[in-house]
């Protein structure tokens, strides 16, 4: 989302109850603490991933999620993988190489965290390429399966398990049908977290299928599918806008959080799997604090009926390991 979009909502807005009355407030949940997720970049190595996992283990919040974002889905010489941020340019990594790095991170977490801790390690790409396809989703899921098999074989899976993830954004190159195909191709074996934004979607309302329009031809139904409607999909939305709005129950939030709330409510009314359960929130560097970001999302998903209740996870994505 751009600067002007943020400026438009910098003033506090009272969101009217276009979507029905306020929900019953659940007992307040304590902030769960946040993990650090990572945009993978530059001179990576298994050693660096191990060290980063170890660092996360030392500051473990007990039960958390970490997303490792490897950039653009890509295919090179018939091999599936991703192009990650390499000194302002790009470098290709096969799914085999990515699995090795992710395993290093998981091993580091295991070695350095308290025995009571647990980490869901989500291996991510975005939808900013022409290789966002069902085939890539399937290959990504197979990679996640291979990582989990390794974690089990090495005895780490009691405290670390792997999932897929996609930074699905209407503003990126691949349009909604391609991203839906990626998620469908990912299948039903493992979880795939959608840590994208809902660019251009309504933050005050929803409509019958396919829902209200978002940017670039996306509809609310597309966001719902990626974050819940697909068996593997689970929402972990980005909430980093600094503008605020006031919810019907008087609680503070912002438009990014409420865009996802409208998607969640769209699911409650029209979705094949009912109201989406938002797994957590992702903040970014140089923006809202993770706790504020989480609080906004928590407030939004508990401001309208049916309320969600707890929001399990909070993470902040940073540039580098």
């Amino acid at each position, binding site marked *: 989302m751009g*600067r002007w979009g943020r400026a438009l909502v910098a003033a506090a807005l009272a969101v009217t109850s276009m979507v029905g009355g306020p929900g019953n407030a659940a007992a307040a949940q304590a902030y769960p603490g946040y993990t650090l997720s990572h945009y993978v970049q530059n*001179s990576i190595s298994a*050693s660096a991933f191990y060290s980063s996992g170890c660092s996360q283990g030392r500051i473990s919040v007990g039960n958390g999620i970490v997303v490792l974002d490897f950039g653009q889905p890509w295919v090179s010489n018939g091999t599936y993988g991703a192009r990650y941020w390499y000194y*302002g*340019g790009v*470098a290709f990594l096969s799914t085999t190489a990515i699995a090795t790095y992710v395993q290093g991170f998981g091993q580091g977490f295991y070695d350095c965290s308290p025995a009571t801790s647990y980490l869901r390690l989500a291996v991510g790409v975005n939808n900013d390429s022409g290789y966002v396809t069902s085939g890539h989703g399937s290959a990504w899921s197979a990679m996640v399966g291979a990582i989990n098999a390794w974690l089990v074989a090495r005895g780490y899976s*009691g405290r670390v398990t792997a999932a897929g993830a996609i930074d699905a954004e209407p503003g990126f190159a691949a349009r909604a049908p391609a991203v839906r195909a990626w998620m469908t191709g990912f299948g039903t074996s493992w979880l795939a977290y959608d840590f994208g934004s809902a660019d251009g979607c309504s933050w005050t309302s929803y409509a019958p299928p396919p829902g209200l329009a978002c940017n670039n031809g996306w509809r609310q139904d597309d966001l719902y599918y990626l974050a819940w409607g697909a068996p593997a999909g689970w929402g972990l939305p980005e909430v980093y806008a600094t503008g605020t709005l006031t919810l019907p129950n008087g609680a503070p939030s912002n438009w990014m959080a409420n865009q996802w709330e409208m998607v969640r409510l769209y699911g409650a009314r029209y979705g094949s799997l009912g109201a989406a359960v938002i797994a957590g929130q992702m903040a970014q560097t140089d923006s809202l604090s993770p706790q504020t970001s989480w609080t906004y999302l928590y407030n939004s998903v508990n401001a309208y009926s049916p309320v969600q209740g707890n929001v399990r996870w909070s993470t902040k994505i940073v540039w580098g390991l």
Partner: protein
Amino acid sequence: MVDQDRVGTLMAAGERLRRRWLRRLLGTGIGALVLAGVALTAPTVGGQAPPPLPAEKQAILDRYAGLQAQGVARPAPVAGAAANPYGDPPPVPAARPGIVAGVGRLNGETETMGPPGIAGRFTNSWYVVGPPLTAIVWAGADRDDTGQGILVVSVWTDAQATSLASLKVLLAPGRTGQLRIAAASGYGLVLVGRDGSRLGFDLGSMTFQK
């Protein structure tokens, strides 16, 4: 509209599957640990039990609970923080040969990937690998105001440049339009705007020079 009957059937099926699976695990003597694992993935809602998950989703969570149970049953010994089995990081940069310390390189327009999380349109980028410093500079424009040229700069003091770093967004003076890095000398860059204007940028002082 939601087909409530179908949802109800699916939920019931999921609950049956979950219970059957847990009964099996209880028989192995690790049920309590599995239950703890399931609790990790099925939060209470404000003190109330959440509604059952759709069967498709519960089946996936059950698979994760199974992984956790296997890990709990056969945990690896903890090696400890000092036991990085992968040794020191490889020489810089790991993925591409021919980099000379302190000599910058320009990424062409087709090989540039913009910095994540920054709402911009990026033309190309330049980087230098230290010592003394490792830096990346992207040139482009504000995504929503393409008349506003921007640079995004990331600087590290470690040569690996894998550690955490901030992305600093700098607004070019004037209305240059989208910027392109045309040339570099040392830590100084020559920028050309979409309007044809030329600007200098000094990485050391992080300032534009007209």
